């Protein structure tokens, strides 16, 4: 015998609850008298043209903003000169170390003392220095001597 059948046989199907006499007749009347007015179905709201297109306008504005930001970042990254990915400082150093770049002394010199030694070793006078570099020194510096060479006459700049 199934367990359900055993329960039915032993306990039956009556839960043992009852209600007051005439309860359901009274309940029906009571519910009807407690009802609020007939509920109106909610009306569908008419949307204006602007309300209909507003989400699309906002979305277009958002994409335009993203496009402008990306353009700005691209412009900044390409105008950063030697400090960008296409021309990193390491590449410049390697170029300088290979000896094919005029700025080698700049990378090798470590102090003003080294610079002074470099100038003294290569030039006997400021005239040669001025010729090599294509401009005239300030008269204040022209009056100085290079490694004991006599100062030349001051020149106007």
């Amino acid at each position: 015998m199934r367990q359900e059948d055993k329960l039915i046989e032993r306990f039956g199907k009556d839960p043992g609850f009852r209600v007051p006499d005439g309860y359901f007749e009274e309940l029906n009347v009571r519910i009807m008298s407690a009802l609020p007015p007939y509920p109106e179905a909610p009306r569908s709201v008419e949307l204006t043209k602007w309300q209909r297109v507003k989400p699309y306008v906002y979305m277009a504005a958002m994409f335009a903003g993203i496009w402008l930001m990306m353009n700005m970042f691209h412009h900044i990254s390409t105008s950063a000169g030697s400090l960008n990915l296409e021309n990193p400082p390491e590449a410049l150093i390697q170029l300088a170390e290979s000896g094919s770049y005029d700025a080698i002394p700049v990378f090798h010199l470590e102090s003003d003392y080294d610079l002074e030694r470099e100038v003294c070793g290569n030039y006997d006078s400021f005239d040669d220095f001025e010729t090599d570099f294509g401009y005239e020194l300030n008269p204040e510096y022209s009056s100085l001597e290079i490694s004991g060479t006599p100062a030349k006459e001051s020149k106007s700049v």
Partner: protein
Amino acid sequence: MTYIAPIDEKELVRQLQDKATAPNAFDALIKRYSQPVYWQIRKMVVNHDDANDLVQNVFIKAWNNLHNFRGDAKLSTWLFKIAVNESINFINKEKQRLQLNEDADEGFLLNNIEADEYFDGDEIQKELQKAIAKLPEKQRLVFNMRYYDEMKYEEMSEILGTSVGALKASYHHAVKKVTEMLLS
């Protein structure tokens, strides 16, 4: 002119959704379904006074949501669904009010069985009600619907939003537990 309630449910639904015919149609609806809805609630909350308040709430909610009823389900299924939700909400509120935890809710239902002046079952029936009160909420619902009302699993599935397989398993466990409590 005397109103004659339609036998056809579709016609009753059409009348319920028409403002002019709705009051008479709703009166017919109450007459047709107030008893099964009341008993469904009563078996869940046990106490007559609580069931009395809840059945009124169920029909007022149904009235207020007539325009939402699409007619996809049967009227009885729709009403039972509201009744089950109302019963569960009520039990949860009572548990909160009495500061009971999830596992201790049978205490409040057992008290209801003892205190209800409209319970006239014998000791055997009281014993069964006490065993049912110890079941988890979902199993208690399924047991009541199947054991007392012999409701089809398909209809229960629509009311409770659970698969037929899960309901069968739930009922099987409920019967097993009740049997062990009472017959072992």
